[in-house]
């Protein structure tokens, strides 16, 4: 059993299919993310990457297929139930709590760590107080890591587009993910910032998070951080492999990279 546990991937998707009315957005997609891995999910616009994310994290119920996380079948679980297992995601369309400050956003991210009984809510004891202190300290540290300390107490609606992307990642980190899934986290960062961000990501894996699944169109970033890459096209698997191999794959170049790769 223990031996098997080691080889068992953290996340495994089998045969995922998603149809919206007449449109099949994702068709029979299967891939896995192993412990300690950084996997990239790429593909042309509308290929079905975000839809995959939504199926993996319970925001959509797959028309067909199954999802396993840490050995449990999480297909069609509720999003929050999946999050509680340690599978945390960010969104492609910027989603933050706009009226809260950066710090409050990140503090709220610690929800799962600070969960408590109803009794403790109304009659908090020493334990609750200590947990609260720890959460605050951790929140401050995460804001720091993401390079947002300058904006610590600014309400989120004051941030620029790029800063918001960083804040989203910070909130996701606060939830202490086992597997972190990021949907275009570097969109809105300039080339230079994106590379810095990539470095940060690499330092996270193994420490703050076990594995990383990342959707991103910034090829420099993807090639720089990913151990393995999965390519979707028109909802179907197009290729899978090491970054170098993907770069050299003519089908990927044709469908996705365009002339730049040539």
């Amino acid at each position, binding site marked *: 059993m223990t031996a098997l546990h080691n080889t068992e991937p953290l996340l495994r998707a089998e045969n995922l299919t998603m149809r919206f009315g007449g449109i099949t957005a994702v068709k029979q997609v299967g891939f896995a993310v192993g412990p300690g891995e950084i996997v990239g999910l790429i593909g042309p616009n509308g290929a079905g990457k975000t839809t995959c994310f939504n199926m993996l994290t319970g*925001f959509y119920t797959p028309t067909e297929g199954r999802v396993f996380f840490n050995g449990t079948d999480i297909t069609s679980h509720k999003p929050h139930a999946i999050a509680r297992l340690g599978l945390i995601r960010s969104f492609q369309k910027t989603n933050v709590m706009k009226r809260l400050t950066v710090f409050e956003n990140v503090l709220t991210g610690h929800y799962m760590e600070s969960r408590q009984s109803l009794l403790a809510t109304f009659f908090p004891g020493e334990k609750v107080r200590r947990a609260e202190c720890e959460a605050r300290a951790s929140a401050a540290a995460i804001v720091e890591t993401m390079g947002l300390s300058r904006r610590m107490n600014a309400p989120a609606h004051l941030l620029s587009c790029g800063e918001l992307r960083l804040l989203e990642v910070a909130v996701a980190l606060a939830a202490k993910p086992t597997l972190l899934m990021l949907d275009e986290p570097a969109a809105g960062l300039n080339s230079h910032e994106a590379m810095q961000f990539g470095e940060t990501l690499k330092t996270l894996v193994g420490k703050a998070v076990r594995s990383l699944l990342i959707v991103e169109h910034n090829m420099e970033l993807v090639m720089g951080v990913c151990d393995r890459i999965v390519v979707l096209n028109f909802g179907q698997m197009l290729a899978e492999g090491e970054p170098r191999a993907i770069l050299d794959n003519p089908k990927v170049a044709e469908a996705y990279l365009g002339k730049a790769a040539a």
Partner: protein
Amino acid sequence: MDLFLQFLTNGLVVGVFYALSALGLTLIFGLMRVVNFAHGEFYMMGGVVGWFVTTYLGLDFFSGLVLVALAIGGFGWLVDRVLIERVRGQGEEPGILLTIGLSIFLVNITLLAIGPAPLKVARAITEGPIFLGPVTITKMRLLAMVIGIALIVGAYAVIHRTRLGSAMRATFQDPMAASLAGIRTKQVYAATFALGCTLSALSGMLLASIYSAQASVGGLVSLKSFVVVILGGMGSFPGAIAGGLLLGVAEALWGGYVATGMVDIIGFLLVILILVLRPQGLFSIRAERA
């Protein structure tokens, strides 16, 4: 069977009236997303001003109707520019509070001006029953139905077939993008609000000539109109018609076969039931994804 037919007819007539009185709200609440608690008061003002212009200015019903449409439309325009404009884009709550205040003000200022008595609005045509087989209906009701259906179809056409209609929908869905497309959003808001008020007032006068006008009728009209709009699905005209007819017929059948004593419960039970089954109402679609 004859009874059933008569109930059904009653229900359909009242259903059209419900749809008609909810029409203004479909624009203002359904499309513009202003939770307008003063809707019933615009309806009420339609009746009261209608009474005033037919009784004191001696206008006939139809000229009165036109004058009422203009007057309340203009008033609605002002309300939007002076009041609603200031709380736009701040979420639902300020609008709710504002229109509750407006509704309290309008009812009571009307009470002050004309008193609480029910008022009689001149009728468009002479009254008299028409017998269609076993079913009785009156000429005035038929006329009101025809006008009502015409207004509903007209409003639908404006929203879905005209440039102004597209501009309205764009403005309510994303005002920033709309202004970048060259749409004069402030004007569009005001025009929509005015149009909604006009429709409310028209139905108010039309129905006041069948029933009667009174300063305090607004509350019930607001409540039922909200029910109709929600039943049909926010912002959907076919939905408003379906919601109105559904409500009318359900009430008629319940009143007919169970008891008239608590017919008002039907609308609310329907809302609860339908929203449990279809959380976006009958005719509305969601365009939102994670």
